[in-house]
């Protein structure tokens, strides 16, 4: 076990542990009936938002490209997956869910990945804020096109209620959602800790130096677009199966921004734990604030501003240092580094 743990990055192990913990908690709450109605409705959204946040973090935090089109990829996945599920359920009424739901997720993800690559190629030409606009524009185009496609329900929406007939949807969907999210998280974290992940981060840190190291920057950019879109698509399929009616107008840039907020608050970069926690908290927050009725979105927006000011204002760096547990983290990192260095020296001596 120790050997296994040393092989996978400790932070990734912690992320996985937290994920498993969250899902176990959800499952227990649902099984025992301890979950309130309100909480029940939050569970599946929390799982797909985790997936959305992780995949957007791959794009924004690891590749370093700002995308405002994540909701667009999500909608492609949602419509593809749900269309497929509806077809399968209609034509093969006896088909069990553990067959058609994974198929729908895979196909939804693949279709979204295709769109990701299609959007990623022209996006190579632009960067920074311009890229944000190009992705936002693509997202709006996808939205407009879907509204005008009659076989996807047009402006009325696409009826997905019959896919999961169960009344206790959250409990039915949770195992699939949990499985999909955990597998996706493992895949994404594995990628980040590999040669390819390092190449992607190199592109983020210094594109010119990455090129000079022989890294095919364009290839990696398009690849990340595709990969991130794939997982957004899978999340979209979950969204669609949890909902009763798909309306393409919900997948607008505001949704992309919501996901972006999670990624930024969670702390961008190779560590996915922040995205996971931020996704859970930010999904729950508007619901928790529901007691404040009319004031809840007002409080939400004030909190967002205050959190951003507190976490990123350069003037508050000193206070942050004192309040946070950074000094513990630093001490631990230092010890780990020292231990590793010692080991490295030892092996070197042995070689001599």
């Amino acid at each position, binding site marked *: 076990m120790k050997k296994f743990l040393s092989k996978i990055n400790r932070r990734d192990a912690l992320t996985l542990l937290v994920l498993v913990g969250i899902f176990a908690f959800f499952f227990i709450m649902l099984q025992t009936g301890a979950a309130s109605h309100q909480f029940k409705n939050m569970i599946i959204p929390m799982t797909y938002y985790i997936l959305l946040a992780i995949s957007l973090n791959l794009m924004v935090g690891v590749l370093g490209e700002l995308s405002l089109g994540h909701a667009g990829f999500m909608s492609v996945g949602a419509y593809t997956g749900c269309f497929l599920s509806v077809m399968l359920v209609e034509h093969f009424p006896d088909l069990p869910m553990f067959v058609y739901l994974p198929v729908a997720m895979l196909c939804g993800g693949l279709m979204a990945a295709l769109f990701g690559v299609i959007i990623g190629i022209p996006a190579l030409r632009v960067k920074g*804020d311009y890229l944000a606009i190009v992705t936002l524009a693509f997202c709006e185009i996808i939205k407009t096109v879907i509204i005008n496609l009659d076989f996807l329900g047009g402006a009325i929406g696409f009826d997905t209620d019959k896919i999961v007939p169960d009344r206790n949807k959250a409990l039915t969907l949770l195992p699939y959602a949990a499985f999909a999210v955990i597998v996706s998280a493992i895949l994404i974290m594995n990628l980040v800790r590999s040669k390819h992940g390092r190449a992607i981060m190199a592109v983020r840190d210094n594109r010119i130096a990455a090129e000079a190291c022989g890294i095919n920057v364009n290839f990696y950019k398009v690849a990340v677009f595709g990969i991130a879109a794939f997982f957004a698509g899978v999340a979209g399929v979950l969204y669609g199966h949890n909902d009763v009616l798909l309306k393409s107008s919900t997948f607008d840039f505001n949704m992309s921004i919501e996901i972006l907020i999670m990624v930024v608050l969670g702390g961008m970069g190779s560590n996915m734990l922040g995205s996971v926690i931020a996704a859970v908290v930010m999904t729950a927050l508007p619901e928790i604030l529901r007691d404040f009725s009319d004031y809840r979105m007002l409080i939400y927006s004030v909190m967002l501003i205050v959190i951003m000011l507190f976490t*990123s204002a350069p003037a508050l760096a000193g206070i942050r240092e004192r309040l946070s547990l950074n000094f513990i983290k630093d001490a631990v990192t230092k010890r780990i580094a020292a231990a590793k260095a010692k080991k490295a020296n030892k092996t070197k001596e042995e070689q001599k």
Partner: protein
Amino acid sequence: MTLLIQTLIQGISLGSIYALIALGYTMVYGIAKMLNFAHGDVIMVGAYTIYSTILLAHFPGWLGVISAVVFCGVLGVVIEFLAYKPLRGAPSLNVLITAIGVSYLLQNMALLLFGGNQKSMLPDSFDFPDVKIGNTGITVTGEVIFTITLTVVLMVALTLFINKTKMGKAMRAVSEDKDAARLMGINVNRTISVTFAIGSILAAFASLCYGMSYAYIKPTTGSMPGIKAFTAAVFGGIGSIPGAMLGGFVIGILEKLSSAYISTQFTDAIVFGVLIVMLVVRPTGLLGKKIREKV
């Protein structure tokens, strides 16, 4: 032919509104190097200010416009001071998220104060008479003439301000190089505040034009024109003032043309599609500066 000319005139009118808003985006971007996502909502605030002074408090129309201009200008400065100034030097993405937070805040304040139902923004007395051009069958509404005239006047004034005044020179200097400007004795903080004030004042005028063309307002009113104007700013090359004007007109005309000749439903898709093609061909917009990366 009549339809084409009429569509073009409507497009220019809509484009004027976009251009006024886009100027706010582009000036703030040029000087503070940030995307002020809340800018679209300043229009909404302006619209509600006009609505409250004229329709709720029954003040005369000119006072409504003046109060909107003053209120938006002050609001712009206050937002900058409270939300953006503390973040100067922070990663740009974090500033963007804060701006989104401000946008949510403005929308929700309006929602609390005025409710979610749409309201008629201006009284009927604000109608201008339509103008018929000879016997060509072309009718231009008074609102369109007012909007275009106001926009042209504001643009000329802005251009003069930027090019002829000391503050305008300071703004150009800060947008070129903040640190060098500071070393030359320019008060960078004040320059940024003035920029926000000007951008917000332009947005207040845009809200007047918007109200005259669309009549109804609600708390999310500023969102879509904001995004469109933002696209216009990017289209023209963000940071460039003539670019924002040009981009605004292009996007406005494009929108009206495609809804008149192609499809009303696909209008947004067409506008955004042209934007993408444009950015792929010219990655820094129509008039944006090409930046050569130094190796």
